[in-house]
């Protein structure tokens, strides 16, 4: 192409030499980024997409060996860069935005200090002007009250505001290329939409963007071109339009299918009521976190509970699970009182009620093997393998530890453990939020299958409306601790009655696949 490409990579290979093994993370990747272009690299975790992006700023990671027949940034041969050259280049030529600003900004420093640091390192303006310049940068990314916000710490800002602050710090050095690695993955749908709008704005202003994501739907709106990575290689590279109108590689087609959503409907009619909560109310201090919530779950039914962070959905789950006593209201489970009774009375019912958490890694004992984790939930002497087979796991994971499993495998183990005592209800709290879209689809299939075969009811909590739409029969929309809307999924999605639901729906990224 033209001589003016900002980034030119040919046959990039990144190998990690770890103490016991060698990992080839990137195996011969070639691409170019033109000025003013928005390029997206899409792939699941472990595909090498992040490592590729980080290799562009010389931060592939400790123990990484980077080889390429060509690695040009800004017309210079980066293969010959000394550490000094890289430092000048980082922040100055390329800014990097990582996933979760809560941990990607230094939690012990104010966001103002974080932004000023870039200005200092790159000698942008005199020291006296830095504070004001930091305020201007915050204003540029639409942070209201920049003077006040600059003096605050990341944990004091909302998820959206701190992601904006992180972007402001990446822009502070005046980079020509902005690399955003999963910039919206940790955010609620509405906030995600706002951040994507901000990035689109930067792009319209002439900034060159490199986006990294596991979710094609998120980047499709923004990107001119998409590179699909799998196992360290680019399997498909095309303009976004061409990709959506007909992908060549089966893996890309799978990604597109995962992004466009698929309803999983049950043929069976819901049975008798399994769990019922009436007029639930929970007050912490002088704040009502849950107000007058009624939930009914029937046998074989999947009820979605959707809302943004802070809407009270996790508290509702804790109330139903009997971890927290309601301030007023009542929970009944299998026809018996489940709230306002001593734990002794709940215990015989416990096996009938199971829980799946977002992050199974912290829900498992790290020193236990998969075999032991699952066997604990089974009657003594029952074989573990058949159960694992039901959740789509091979026998060779039996003797592995949770840390040695992928995110999807771990969630399958969690599901195996949850269904082992044959419960009548499983409460799932964001069970697929930490997973890649392609893996998400598989886990949703598995959950739908279990409902179908066992008649198990699911209460499925998520901030992701897309997931709820694909899986649930009925949905409850929670806002500020109140159910603002409820009904069959199709009806709520087609004709949302409440303003808040409409806002949530508008924010869901979907792929408009042209035939």
């Amino acid at each position: 192409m033209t001589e003016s490409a900002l980034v030119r990579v040919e046959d990039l290979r990144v190998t990690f030499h770890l103490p016991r093994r060698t990992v080839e993370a990137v195996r011969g990747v070639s691409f170019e980024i033109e000025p003013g272009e928005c390029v997206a690299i899409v792939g699941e975790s472990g595909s090498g997409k992040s490592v590729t992006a980080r290799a562009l700023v010389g931060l592939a990671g400790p123990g990484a060996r980077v080889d390429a027949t060509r690695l040009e940034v800004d017309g210079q041969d980066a293969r010959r860069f000394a550490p000094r050259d890289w430092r000048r280049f980082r922040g100055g030529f390329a800014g990097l935005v990582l996933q979760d600003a809560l941990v990607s900004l230094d939690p012990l420093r104010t966001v103002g200090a974080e932004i000023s640091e870039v200005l200092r390192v790159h000698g942008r303006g005199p020291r006296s002007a830095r504070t004001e310049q930091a305020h201007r940068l915050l204003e540029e990314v639409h942070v209201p009250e920049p003077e006040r916000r600059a003096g605050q710490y990341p944990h004091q800002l909302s998820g959206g505001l701190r992601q904006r602050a992180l972007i402001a710090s990446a822009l502070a050095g005046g980079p020509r290329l902005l690399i955003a690695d999963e910039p919206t993955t940790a955010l609620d749908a509405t906030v995600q939409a706002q951040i994507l709008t901000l990035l689109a704005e930067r792009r319209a202003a002439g900034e060159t963007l490199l986006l990294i994501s596991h979710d094609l739907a998120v980047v499709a709106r923004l990107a001119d071109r998409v590179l699909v990575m799998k196992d360290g290689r680019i399997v498909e590279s095309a303009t976004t339009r061409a990709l959506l109108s007909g992908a060549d590689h089966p893996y890309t087609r799978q990604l597109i299918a995962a992004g466009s959503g698929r309803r999983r409907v049950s043929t069976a009619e819901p049975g008798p009521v399994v769990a019922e909560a009436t007029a639930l109310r929970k007050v912490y201090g002088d704040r009502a976190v849950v107000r007058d919530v009624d939930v009914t779950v029937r046998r074989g039914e999947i009820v979605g509970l959707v809302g943004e962070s802070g809407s009270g959905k996790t508290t509702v789950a804790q109330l139903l699970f009997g971890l927290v006593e309601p301030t007023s209201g009542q929970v009944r489970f299998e026809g018996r009182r489940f709230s306002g009774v001593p734990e002794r009375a709940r215990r015989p019912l416990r096996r009938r009620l199971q829980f799946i958490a977002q992050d199974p890694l912290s829900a498992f004992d790290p020193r236990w093997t998969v075999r032991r984790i699952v066997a604990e939930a089974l009657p003594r002497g029952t074989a573990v393998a058949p159960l694992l087979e039901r959740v789509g796991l091979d026998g060779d994971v039996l003797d592995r530890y949770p840390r040695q499993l992928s995110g999807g495998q771990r969630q399958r183990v969690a599901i195996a453990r949850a269904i082992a005592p044959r419960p009548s209800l499983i409460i799932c709290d964001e069970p697929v939020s930490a997973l890649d879209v392609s893996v998400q689809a598989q886990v949703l299939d598995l959950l739908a299958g279990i409902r179908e075969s066992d008649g198990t009811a699911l209460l499925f909590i998520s901030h992701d409306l897309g997931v709820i739409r694909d899986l649930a029969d009925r949905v409850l929309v929670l806002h500020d601790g109140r159910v603002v809307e409820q009904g069959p999924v199709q009806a709520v999605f087609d004709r949302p009655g409440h303003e808040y639901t409409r806002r949530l729906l508008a924010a869901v990224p979907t792929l408009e696949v042209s035939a």
Partner: protein
Amino acid sequence: MIRPILRRVGAGVLVLWAAATAAYLALLAAPGDTVDAIIGDGADTPLIRAQIIQEWHLDRPAVVQYADFLWRAVHGDLGRSYLLQRPVAEVIGGQLAPTLKLAATAAGFGILLALVLALVARRPWVRRLSSTTELVLVSTPPFLIGIVLLSVFSFRLGWFPVSGDRGAAALVLPAITMGLPIAGTLAQVLRDGLDRALEEPFAVTARSRGLRERSVLVRHALKHALLPAVTMLGWSFGVLIGGTVIIEQVFGRPGLGQVTVQAVSSSDLPVVLAVVILAAAVFVVINTVTDLAYLLIDPRLRRS
């Protein structure tokens, strides 16, 4: 902000009372007669005994004596030493300065050395060397380090005085002796914290801004590593006060250590009680300072 501080002060007073009472009960249960302790090597006649019992109110029931002790302690009167026949406050006050001087110097030296070890020794083989040395320092009893230092630098080379507390030179060896184990433990905790912080995403962000590795270490990672180190340091200070007892013996220094040993061996009840109360007070103060340091370092803890 006011309520937690008040709660802390209340808890501190409770700790002091508990420590004083426990010590009082322990000494009451210990064998030996108070009158014998007061007489010491003096003349022992029934008349003198009667006089002593009269003068020290030893004929009153133990409960009353205990209440009396508490009442006076609250008013700042720690009583008179049986042995030296002087006010306890005076006995301890005179020996407090050398001990505090030693403890502070040792802590200062230990902190400085730990920072240097953790921040500077980062290359793999230097780290391994430093790490091993630290382990040796931590596992060696301080008096042994003291004796080795004495025999090399005082007896053989004659660089520092063998004993006493005259001038700064006399402080060097005891401070190093007590500071080395602190440096060893602290350096390990600091290094561990730095390593963990450097793997956090914000360290990647910092590097992506073009910061030098050294700046990432000092400007970002260090503060994170300080949190566990402060806990460790608070604990070391406590050990330090206890450790002076032995080190002051080894180096023949005046100080609380000497006073305490003497008071215990001659059943000088008021002095022992005062030392216990002082040690408890030091612990309370250090714990409070540690908690406040947390708030200073980590803004996430400031939410009330």
